[in-house]
Protein backbone atom coordinates (compact mmCIF):
# COMPACT_ATOMS: atom_id res chain seq x y z
CA UNK A 1 0.00 0.00 0.00
CA UNK A 2 2.05 2.87 1.26
CA UNK A 3 5.28 1.01 0.54
CA UNK A 4 4.85 1.94 -3.12
CA UNK A 5 4.24 5.54 -2.22
CA UNK A 6 7.42 5.62 -0.15
CA UNK A 7 9.54 4.64 -3.11
CA UNK A 8 9.03 8.01 -4.77
CA UNK A 9 10.66 9.98 -2.00
CA UNK A 10 12.54 8.24 0.75
CA UNK A 11 12.14 9.56 4.26
CA UNK A 12 15.38 10.93 5.66
CA UNK A 13 16.73 10.05 9.06
CA UNK A 14 16.88 13.60 10.38
CA UNK A 15 15.66 16.78 8.74
CA UNK A 16 15.73 20.41 9.76
CA UNK A 17 12.03 20.10 10.66
CA UNK A 18 12.92 17.48 13.26
CA UNK A 19 15.18 19.94 15.04
CA UNK A 20 12.48 22.62 14.85
CA UNK A 21 10.02 20.15 16.37
CA UNK A 22 12.40 19.16 19.16
CA UNK A 23 13.32 22.76 19.92
CA UNK A 24 9.64 23.76 20.14
CA UNK A 25 8.84 20.82 22.43
CA UNK A 26 11.77 21.50 24.74
CA UNK A 27 10.94 25.23 24.90
CA UNK A 28 7.29 24.51 25.75
CA UNK A 29 8.31 21.98 28.41
CA UNK A 30 10.95 24.20 30.01
CA UNK A 31 8.68 27.23 30.13
CA UNK A 32 5.89 25.09 31.62
CA UNK A 33 8.28 23.93 34.34
CA UNK A 34 9.24 27.51 35.12
CA UNK A 35 5.60 28.59 35.27
CA UNK A 36 4.78 25.76 37.68
CA UNK A 37 7.73 26.55 39.90
CA UNK A 38 6.79 30.21 39.94
CA UNK A 39 3.80 29.31 42.10
CA UNK A 40 5.90 28.63 45.15
CA UNK A 41 4.38 29.70 48.42
CA UNK A 42 4.52 29.19 52.13
CA UNK A 43 1.02 28.07 53.04
CA UNK A 44 1.08 24.56 51.66
CA UNK A 45 -1.65 22.04 52.20
CA UNK A 46 -1.41 18.32 51.57
CA UNK A 47 -4.41 16.76 49.86
CA UNK A 48 -4.68 13.00 49.50
CA UNK A 49 -7.30 11.74 47.10
CA UNK A 50 -8.55 8.28 46.32
CA UNK A 51 -10.58 8.04 43.11
CA UNK A 52 -10.93 11.85 43.13
CA UNK A 53 -12.44 11.72 46.64
CA UNK A 54 -10.49 13.62 49.30
CA UNK A 55 -9.52 11.27 52.13
CA UNK A 56 -6.93 13.33 54.00
CA UNK A 57 -5.86 16.95 54.19
CA UNK A 58 -3.30 18.62 56.38
CA UNK A 59 -1.89 22.10 56.36
CA UNK A 60 1.89 21.95 56.49
CA UNK A 61 2.09 25.03 58.70
CA UNK A 62 0.48 22.91 61.44
CA UNK A 63 3.19 20.27 61.11
CA UNK A 64 6.11 20.97 63.40
CA UNK A 65 7.90 17.63 63.06
CA UNK A 66 7.89 14.63 60.80
CA UNK A 67 4.85 12.40 61.15
CA UNK A 68 4.04 9.16 59.41
CA UNK A 69 0.48 8.92 58.16
CA UNK A 70 -0.79 5.49 57.11
CA UNK A 71 -3.24 5.53 54.23
CA UNK A 72 -5.68 2.66 54.37
CA UNK A 73 -6.95 0.87 51.32
CA UNK A 74 -6.10 -1.95 49.02
CA UNK A 75 -2.39 -1.23 49.50
CA UNK A 76 -0.67 -0.10 52.69
CA UNK A 77 0.84 3.26 51.93
CA UNK A 78 2.75 5.30 54.45
CA UNK A 79 2.94 9.01 53.86
CA UNK A 80 5.58 11.03 55.67
CA UNK A 81 4.39 14.56 56.33
CA UNK A 82 7.16 17.04 57.02
CA UNK A 83 7.05 20.78 57.70
CA UNK A 84 8.43 21.48 54.23
CA UNK A 85 6.85 18.74 52.14
CA UNK A 86 5.52 15.21 51.87
CA UNK A 87 6.83 11.91 50.65
CA UNK A 88 5.47 8.38 50.31
CA UNK A 89 8.02 6.30 52.20
CA UNK A 90 6.54 2.86 51.67
CA UNK A 91 3.86 1.18 49.62
CA UNK A 92 2.81 -2.39 48.85
CA UNK A 93 2.02 -1.57 45.25
CA UNK A 94 3.97 -3.27 42.52
CA UNK A 95 5.73 -0.53 40.62
CA UNK A 96 6.83 1.77 43.48
CA UNK A 97 6.56 4.82 41.25
CA UNK A 98 5.02 6.70 44.18
CA UNK A 99 7.96 5.89 46.46
CA UNK A 100 10.50 6.69 43.77
CA UNK A 101 8.92 10.09 43.19
CA UNK A 102 10.55 11.18 46.43
CA UNK A 103 9.68 14.28 48.38
CA UNK A 104 7.50 17.02 46.98
CA UNK A 105 7.85 20.50 48.36
CA UNK A 106 6.10 22.94 46.06
CA UNK A 107 2.53 23.82 45.29
CA UNK A 108 1.17 21.95 42.29
CA UNK A 109 3.50 19.01 42.68
CA UNK A 110 1.96 15.58 43.03
CA UNK A 111 2.75 12.01 43.94
CA UNK A 112 0.61 9.49 42.15
CA UNK A 113 0.13 5.82 42.96
CA UNK A 114 -1.87 4.40 40.09
CA UNK A 115 -2.36 0.85 41.43
CA UNK A 116 -3.87 2.21 44.63
CA UNK A 117 -5.74 5.05 42.85
CA UNK A 118 -4.11 7.46 45.29
CA UNK A 119 -2.85 10.92 44.50
CA UNK A 120 -1.04 13.18 46.92
CA UNK A 121 -0.91 16.81 45.91
CA UNK A 122 0.40 19.97 47.47
CA UNK A 123 -1.72 23.01 47.00
CA UNK A 124 -0.93 26.46 48.14
CA UNK A 125 -2.99 28.97 50.02
CA UNK A 126 -2.05 32.41 48.87
CA UNK A 127 0.79 32.69 46.38
CA UNK A 128 3.58 34.87 47.67
CA UNK A 129 5.92 36.99 45.63
CA UNK A 130 9.48 35.76 45.29
CA UNK A 131 10.86 39.27 45.54
CA UNK A 132 9.08 42.44 46.52
CA UNK A 133 10.55 45.46 44.82
CA UNK A 134 9.86 49.04 45.93
Amino acid at each position, binding site marked *: *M*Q*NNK*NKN*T*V*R*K*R*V*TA*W*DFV*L*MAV*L*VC*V*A*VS*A*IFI*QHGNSDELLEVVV*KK*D*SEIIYTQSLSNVSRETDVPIDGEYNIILKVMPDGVQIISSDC*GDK*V*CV*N*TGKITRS*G*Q*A*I*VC*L*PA*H*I*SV*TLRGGEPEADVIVG
Partner: protein
Amino acid sequence: MKNSKQKKKFNTTAFAQTAMLSALTIVLSFLEGMLPELPVPGAKLGLANLAVMTATDLNGLGGGLCTTLIKAFFAVITRGPVAGFMSLCGSLLSMLVMWFFMNYDRKKLGYVGIGVLGAVSHNLGQLIAAFAIIGGSVFFYLPFLIIVAVFTGTFTGIVNSLLLPAVKKVKV
Protein backbone atom coordinates in the same frame (compact mmCIF):
# COMPACT_ATOMS: atom_id res chain seq x y z
CA MET B 1 -6.08 -10.36 11.92
CA LYS B 2 -8.56 -9.09 9.36
CA ASN B 3 -6.68 -5.80 9.37
CA SER B 4 -3.69 -7.38 7.68
CA LYS B 5 -5.74 -8.09 4.56
CA GLN B 6 -5.20 -6.08 1.46
CA LYS B 7 -7.71 -5.36 -1.24
CA LYS B 8 -7.24 -8.42 -3.40
CA LYS B 9 -5.86 -11.24 -1.34
CA PHE B 10 -4.76 -12.14 2.12
CA ASN B 11 -1.36 -10.54 2.61
CA THR B 12 0.89 -13.14 4.18
CA THR B 13 3.84 -10.78 4.51
CA ALA B 14 1.82 -8.21 6.43
CA PHE B 15 0.37 -10.97 8.60
CA ALA B 16 3.80 -12.37 9.45
CA GLN B 17 5.29 -8.92 10.05
CA THR B 18 2.43 -7.94 12.36
CA ALA B 19 2.79 -11.18 14.31
CA MET B 20 6.54 -10.77 14.70
CA LEU B 21 6.35 -7.10 15.65
CA SER B 22 3.60 -7.82 18.17
CA ALA B 23 5.80 -10.47 19.73
CA LEU B 24 8.60 -7.92 19.75
CA THR B 25 6.47 -5.37 21.66
CA ILE B 26 5.87 -8.03 24.32
CA VAL B 27 9.59 -8.77 24.65
CA LEU B 28 10.48 -5.06 24.69
CA SER B 29 7.79 -4.27 27.29
CA PHE B 30 9.20 -7.02 29.47
CA LEU B 31 12.77 -5.83 28.92
CA GLU B 32 11.77 -2.28 29.76
CA GLY B 33 10.28 -3.47 33.04
CA MET B 34 13.68 -4.83 34.05
CA LEU B 35 15.56 -1.61 33.39
CA PRO B 36 16.06 0.83 36.25
CA GLU B 37 13.53 3.61 36.66
CA LEU B 38 14.15 6.86 34.85
CA PRO B 39 14.67 9.88 37.11
CA VAL B 40 11.26 11.20 36.03
CA PRO B 41 8.45 9.33 37.80
CA GLY B 42 6.26 7.30 35.48
CA ALA B 43 8.47 7.90 32.46
CA LYS B 44 9.26 4.90 30.32
CA LEU B 45 11.94 4.54 27.70
CA GLY B 46 9.26 3.57 25.22
CA LEU B 47 11.16 0.65 23.76
CA ALA B 48 7.92 -1.07 22.78
CA ASN B 49 6.94 2.02 20.86
CA LEU B 50 9.79 1.17 18.53
CA ALA B 51 8.01 -1.92 17.23
CA VAL B 52 4.70 -0.06 17.04
CA MET B 53 6.37 2.53 14.81
CA THR B 54 7.87 -0.18 12.59
CA ALA B 55 4.49 -1.92 12.29
CA THR B 56 2.69 1.31 11.45
CA ASP B 57 5.23 2.25 8.81
CA LEU B 58 5.21 -1.18 7.18
CA ASN B 59 1.52 -2.05 7.25
CA GLY B 60 -0.30 1.20 7.88
CA LEU B 61 -3.15 1.74 10.28
CA GLY B 62 -4.20 -1.93 10.34
CA GLY B 63 -0.78 -3.28 11.23
CA GLY B 64 -0.25 -0.59 13.84
CA LEU B 65 -3.66 -1.19 15.40
CA CYS B 66 -3.12 -4.96 15.66
CA THR B 67 0.26 -4.48 17.30
CA THR B 68 -1.15 -1.90 19.72
CA LEU B 69 -4.05 -4.13 20.77
CA ILE B 70 -1.82 -7.17 21.28
CA LYS B 71 0.60 -5.06 23.34
CA ALA B 72 -2.26 -3.76 25.51
CA PHE B 73 -3.68 -7.29 25.92
CA PHE B 74 -0.28 -8.47 27.13
CA ALA B 75 -0.13 -5.58 29.60
CA VAL B 76 -3.58 -6.57 30.94
CA ILE B 77 -2.64 -10.20 31.56
CA THR B 78 0.77 -9.48 33.06
CA ARG B 79 0.39 -6.16 34.86
CA GLY B 80 -3.36 -5.85 35.39
CA PRO B 81 -6.19 -3.83 33.87
CA VAL B 82 -4.85 -0.44 35.00
CA ALA B 83 -1.52 -0.96 33.25
CA GLY B 84 -3.36 -2.37 30.24
CA PHE B 85 -5.57 0.71 29.97
CA MET B 86 -2.53 2.99 30.30
CA SER B 87 -0.69 1.01 27.66
CA LEU B 88 -3.66 1.07 25.29
CA CYS B 89 -4.25 4.82 25.60
CA GLY B 90 -0.56 5.62 25.18
CA SER B 91 0.14 3.35 22.23
CA LEU B 92 -3.13 4.10 20.46
CA LEU B 93 -2.61 7.86 20.49
CA SER B 94 1.05 7.43 19.61
CA MET B 95 0.24 5.08 16.74
CA LEU B 96 -2.43 7.39 15.30
CA VAL B 97 -0.14 10.43 15.49
CA MET B 98 2.78 8.56 13.87
CA TRP B 99 0.51 7.12 11.16
CA PHE B 100 -0.89 10.57 10.39
CA PHE B 101 2.52 12.21 10.05
CA MET B 102 3.99 9.26 8.13
CA ASN B 103 1.32 9.70 5.47
CA TYR B 104 0.58 13.41 5.41
CA ASP B 105 3.78 15.30 6.25
CA ARG B 106 5.09 15.01 2.64
CA LYS B 107 8.36 13.62 4.03
CA LYS B 108 9.19 16.94 5.68
CA LEU B 109 10.00 15.19 8.94
CA GLY B 110 12.70 12.56 9.29
CA TYR B 111 12.34 9.28 11.15
CA VAL B 112 13.63 11.06 14.23
CA GLY B 113 10.81 13.61 14.07
CA ILE B 114 8.19 10.87 13.71
CA GLY B 115 9.75 9.00 16.63
CA VAL B 116 9.70 12.12 18.83
CA LEU B 117 6.06 12.82 17.96
CA GLY B 118 5.23 9.21 18.74
CA ALA B 119 7.03 9.29 22.09
CA VAL B 120 5.44 12.59 23.15
CA SER B 121 1.94 11.45 22.18
CA HIS B 122 2.55 8.12 23.95
CA ASN B 123 3.26 9.97 27.18
CA LEU B 124 0.33 12.31 26.60
CA GLY B 125 -1.99 9.33 26.06
CA GLN B 126 -0.75 7.70 29.27
CA LEU B 127 -1.32 10.90 31.23
CA ILE B 128 -4.84 11.18 29.80
CA ALA B 129 -5.43 7.60 30.95
CA ALA B 130 -4.02 8.40 34.41
CA PHE B 131 -6.24 11.47 34.54
CA ALA B 132 -9.28 9.35 33.65
CA ILE B 133 -8.43 6.93 36.48
CA ILE B 134 -7.52 9.23 39.33
CA GLY B 135 -8.10 12.75 38.05
CA GLY B 136 -6.23 15.64 39.60
CA SER B 137 -2.85 17.01 38.86
CA VAL B 138 -1.21 14.26 36.82
CA PHE B 139 -0.47 16.77 34.06
CA PHE B 140 2.12 18.25 36.36
CA TYR B 141 4.44 15.57 34.94
CA LEU B 142 3.88 16.46 31.30
CA PRO B 143 6.78 18.94 30.82
CA PHE B 144 9.26 16.44 32.28
CA LEU B 145 7.83 13.62 30.21
CA ILE B 146 8.09 15.74 27.06
CA ILE B 147 11.81 16.27 27.66
CA VAL B 148 12.36 12.54 28.25
CA ALA B 149 10.24 11.77 25.18
CA VAL B 150 12.45 13.95 22.98
CA PHE B 151 15.40 11.69 23.84
CA THR B 152 13.57 8.36 23.66
CA GLY B 153 11.83 9.41 20.46
CA THR B 154 15.16 10.30 18.87
CA PHE B 155 16.43 6.85 19.79
CA THR B 156 13.31 5.19 18.35
CA GLY B 157 13.62 7.24 15.16
CA ILE B 158 17.29 6.40 14.63
CA VAL B 159 16.70 2.67 15.16
CA ASN B 160 13.78 2.70 12.72
CA SER B 161 15.71 4.70 10.13
CA LEU B 162 18.26 1.87 10.14
CA LEU B 163 15.72 -0.93 10.35
CA LEU B 164 12.92 0.06 7.99
CA PRO B 165 14.85 0.46 4.70
CA ALA B 166 16.42 -2.97 5.31
CA VAL B 167 13.06 -4.63 6.04
CA LYS B 168 11.43 -3.02 2.99
CA LYS B 169 14.21 -4.31 0.72
CA VAL B 170 13.43 -7.92 1.62
CA LYS B 171 11.17 -9.47 -1.03
CA VAL B 172 9.14 -12.33 0.35
